[in-house]
């Protein structure tokens, strides 16, 4: 069970890194994320799910908000190194949400 949870944590980390690299999650949050507790941590989880959904929508696969098989396949595919959403888009999205 421990091994499974470690693997899942690893996958989660690599997916987070992918989401950050391609503009779905704001970069730099890992520097602080490990210090956050309670509501703030919950907010990060929400952002993560939203980011997954946005990725799924952009990639044209079923939008589940979960790291499912289709999402893993999408992440493995060859692609351009530019972010799908530029930094301004994320900032703008946040402001709109608030």
């Amino acid at each position, binding site marked *: 069970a421990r091994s499974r949870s470690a693997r899942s944590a690893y996958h989660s980390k690599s997916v987070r*890194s992918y989401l*950050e*690299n*391609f503009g779905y999650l704001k*970069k*730099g949050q890992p*520097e*602080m994320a*490990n*210090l956050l507790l309670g509501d703030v941590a919950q907010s990060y989880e929400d952002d993560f799910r939203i980011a997954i959904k946005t990725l799924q*929508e*952009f*990639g*044209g696969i079923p939008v589940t908000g979960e790291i499912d098989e289709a999402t893993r396949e*999408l992440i*493995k*595919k*060859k*692609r*351009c*190194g*530019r*972010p*799908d959403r*530029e930094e301004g888009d994320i900032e703008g999205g946040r402001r709109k949400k608030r």
Partner: protein
Amino acid sequence: FAVQGEKWKYTNLTWSLSSSRRPSQLDPHVTRSVLARALDVWQQASRLTFTEVNSDDADIVVSFAKRYHDDAYPFDGRGSILAHAFFPGSGRGGDAHFDDDELWLLQPKNDDEEGTSLFAVAAHEFGHSLGLSHSSVKGALMFPWYQGIQPNFVLPEDDRNGIQQMYGSKENERKWGKIPYYRPIETPPPTTTTTTTTTTTTTRRPYIHHHHNTHQGHHPNHRPYTPYPRNPNLYPKYYPEKPSSPERPSYPRPTYPDRPSYPDRTNIPTYYPERRHYNATEEHPRRNHNHYPRPTETTTQATYRPRYPQNRPEYPTYPRANSPTDPRYKPHYPVKTTARPRATPPRAPPHTTPPPDKPDACNTNFDAVALIRNELFIFKNRYHWRRGAAGHYPDYPIEITRMWTELPRNLTHVDAVYERPDRKIAIFVGKELYLFDSQNLVPGYPKRLRDLGLPESLEKLDAAMVWGHNGKTYFYSGSVYWKFDEDVGRVELDYPRDMAMWKGVGYNIDSVFQWKDGKTYFFKGRGYWKFNDLRMRVEHERQLPSAAFWMGCPTERAGRREPFR
């Protein structure tokens, strides 16, 4: 489609394959031909034109690189990330980088064949170079995930709409003409010439295409810019003879050349050409000589008088009245004659001249600053100062090698210093890390930076610190930073990242460390910033002078210069 926002200000763009970063596995000649085809995809759909030039100053420079390659977007070996390109702009704006580790295919492949079509990826990347972002439309060229390429590829509608929104379509150009900000480039003159015998007395030749790129109106007296010399008698090579028949011109359309036909950049006439003299039988490339008598074979110096004879070498020049070159010169102001030059220059008093590289504590920047065993160590050149609980140690600065004797004897400076969580002292010098247990070099050191997972091409670190905010180690160099895993002894995978994360400190910092108050301090030049770790930005946009606070120098001396902002 998505338009990023930046676009080129002109439609005639230049491109080149980088001279230093060419593909290691591909024939550069064929590669250039594939790249030209990829650009043609966009040229066919818009008013843009692309000219290959043999220069790294082109608008779009294409290069092939592996892993870390001097930007914040390192490649990842074969698979996954294939390439990236920068949006329009100066410097590296518009440039396209391809991962040299990929298996690039120059020809369309069979379905079972491994590899990635260079044409497909290049066409996508050039979309970024022109200002398009990724599109979420599956099948569009700007869809971020690789989709291969069909044999008879045509630009999908989504991308066509995007590029035409930015630069207009060919149809509109035919209807409305060229856009007014068309940039003049050196183009060969028309291959057909009209008759040169004319009875009109006008001085304007009928076969010249006039560029209205200057901001002046179409005035009858205004002679617009012409990008090549205009006198056929003086420049016959630009004015080929009339073609033998209109059906078959003697000068065929240029085909795709083996080498760029663009002339050397130094030969391009600029708006402000170098100052030089043009003699009577030579025409200035752009100055209009119609004001003067036309030089002919019978023209002599006496009949052809230029406007500014004093600037011409064949005319004798005379000093102006009362000029310093005139022997009769008298100054307009009284000359002091009381001060005599000293027979011998004054000698510096003994024992006060520091060695040439010994820094002035109150008027210098720092190579590295670190808190070691709760004492402040400040490094500059081959010296360091030390500040303990009782203040600055006397008799400092001393050579760094007196404290850490196993550093190289010829040490000139250190790049970064920090105390690791296990209390060992890490000193970075160029491409090497020296690790000391107190004053003793740890066996196995020095280590190379690449052994820490840093790129092979990295010449040095700017700074290193353990960030008090999370206890993790960070390395800084130029415009990027890395997070270092002390347990594994390597930098973490998704680094380097851009320094923009550390808002307010900019690039190329000198040093960073955590002081006893738990705050982070960044140093650059002769100033420093206090950093707010929670807000992730500097607490004060304007730097404070380092010498006054950290070296105890008087403020009037340390604060003389305007701090860096």
